């Protein structure tokens, strides 16, 4: 009996990445129509998923925008607070108690209430009035693109966001409206301050807001406080809690989380968006799976020929995975560019879409997994092919 054959190390060495990539690319691109369908499927999935998740991020940012832009370290509200928009009025003495707490440098009232906005040409809209103290700079509008914030100190003035001009029936500084039947004049516009509810924010000084709401003096939905640098907000909270046991004391991040969680999950809005994103992935995956499977099955004879020639299974595995990788790279690239363009367009709409770099990178991983997962069925088919089949045609 002769010795078993030893194959030279050169022949046994696994092939370099080059030929697998070349064959994968050519297999994908050879049938133009199918290639376009593959790309459309992946791009559809990427765009849908990116936009849905971007909407989730946008809504999340929108729900907490006022909280994040208010330079308050501590928020005090009547017990049972669940979000920024809906809060009960509290007693005036709360502000004084907060002011006396060690570490607190300033405490002031903040008004937040829904109200009716009558347009100059007639018709009503619901708005959310935010009444702030213009002297401290803790709260108030930001990103002002038209008008002078000092003008808000005048009686019966407001600032709104330019995104809501049409909704509020106004077009320029000086337009006159009514809030709860009380006359008001627009003295400026912000840009990009959206409301998660359908009621746009209307910024006014605390004094003017009291008038718009026909409220009693010293009313406040919130007492907001600034702390001295280096003060531990949790220590202030503990100290205040002893004196104000029946109120909710929240740091800025706690209040932002509370509001975010309420709007995104308690109401189901965020869950619906995430489910839509997942569905986009599933639909895209089904399309891609079908096309990648068909691409592999169409080339089964070639894979059989490769196996007959002695190509290792690993080479065929690499070809199919490279098909998935190339499809993912191209589909993700095109999809993200489209999604970014949609996100850019959303800057001028009421629904903000935010696609941070991390989301784009994370979506590539998801797209690759989607394509690789879609290839699994075809991988099995190609790997188990009998090389003898090429002689039986």
């Amino acid at each position: 009996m002769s010795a078993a054959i030893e194959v030279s190390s050169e022949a046994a060495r696994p092939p370099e990445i080059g030929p697998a990539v070349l064959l994968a690319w050519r297999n994908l691109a050879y049938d133009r129509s199918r290639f376009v369908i593959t790309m459309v499927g992946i791009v559809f999935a990427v765009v849908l998923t990116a936009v849905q998740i971007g909407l989730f991020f946008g809504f999340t940012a929108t729900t907490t925008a006022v909280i994040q832009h208010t330079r308050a370290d501590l928020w005090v509200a009547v017990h049972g607070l669940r979000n920024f928009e809906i809060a009960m009025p509290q007693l005036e003495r709360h502000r004084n108690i907060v002011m006396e707490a060690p570490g607190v440098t300033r405490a002031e009232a903040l008004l937040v209430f829904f109200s009716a906005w009558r347009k100059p040409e007639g018709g009503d809209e619901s708005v959310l009035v935010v009444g702030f103290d213009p002297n401290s700079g803790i709260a108030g509008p930001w990103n002002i693109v038209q008008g002078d914030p000092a003008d808000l100190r005048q009686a019966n003035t407001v600032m709104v966001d330019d995104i809501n001009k049409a909704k509020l029936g106004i077009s320029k500084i000086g337009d006159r409206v009514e809030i709860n039947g009380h006359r008001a004049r627009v003295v400026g516009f912000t840009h990009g301050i959206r409301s998660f509810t359908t009621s746009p924010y209307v910024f006014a000084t605390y004094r003017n807001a009291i008038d718009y709401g026909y409220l009693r003096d010293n009313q406040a939905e919130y007492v907001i406080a600034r702390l001295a640098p280096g003060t531990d907000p949790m220590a202030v909270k503990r100290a205040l809690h002893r004196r104000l046991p029946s109120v909710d004391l929240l740091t800025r991040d706690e209040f932002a989380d509370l509001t975010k969680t309420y709007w995104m999950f308690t109401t189901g809005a965020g869950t619906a968006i995430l489910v839509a994103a997942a569905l986009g992935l599933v639909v895209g995956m089904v399309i891609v799976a079908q096309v990648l499977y068909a691409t592999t099955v169409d080339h089964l004879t070639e894979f059989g020929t490769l196996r007959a020639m002695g190509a290792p299974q690993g080479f065929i595995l690499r070809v199919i995975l490279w098909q998935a990788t190339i499809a993912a790279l191209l589909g993700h690239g095109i999809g993200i560019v489209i999604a970014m363009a949609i996100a850019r367009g959303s800057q001028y709409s009421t629904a903000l879409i935010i696609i941070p770099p991390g989301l784009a990178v994370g979506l590539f991983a998801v797209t690759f997994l989607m394509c690789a997962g879609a290839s699994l069925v075809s991988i099995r088919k190609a790997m188990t092919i009998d090389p003898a089949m090429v002689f039986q045609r």
Partner: protein
Amino acid sequence: MDDRRPALVVEGVSLVYGSGAVAVQALERVDLAVRRGEMLALMGPSGSGKTTLLMIMGCLLRPTAGSVRLLGRETSPLDQAGMARLRLAHVGFIFQSYNLFPALSAVETLRMTLRLKGWPADRAREEAPRLLAQVDLADKLHSMPAQLSGGQKQRVAIARALAGDPEIILGDEPTAALDWRTGRGIMELLRRLAHSHARSVVVVTHDPRVAELADRIVTIADGRIAPREGGAS
């Protein structure tokens, strides 16, 4: 080369498909040796077992009995991966339907095959056009299979089988899809390559005119070697 030792030896090879009442004896105690530099034609009617024998010689099928020695070494201890490595290093295949890759040009097909066999990219880039020139396709380097005639496709397939300089070339009806004139040209090319490079070439055919161009003809009938052998030289 004047080394006339057998490159491929088949001894007492039998193959049975299935078992019990449905067992089919595809090959029965076949003995055959193919020398280096020899071109052998395997003839026989359809279903006689000639392609099955070719697959066993090419390490694509395992016989149920008997042994195959390739380049003096026994193949039976090899597992599937070992058989694949053996094919890749020492055997070139030519198929009836060419089995080219429709998405690769002639030169890309050759380069990919050489890279698959472990050749570095720069050497593969130099060698691929040389192989195509060897089969008179120097002017078709960048042609896609769809742009080639049947004879040209088979020449690309022959060049692919020669890539990496394997000692054994096995062809399954390589001229069946071609007209007689083109088929004769392919057979003459294979014979020339067998003689000039001391390769062992085995070609399955059922066309006696094609078989006559081989150095030796072996006829198979009902899974057995027919007693009489003939040849062109």
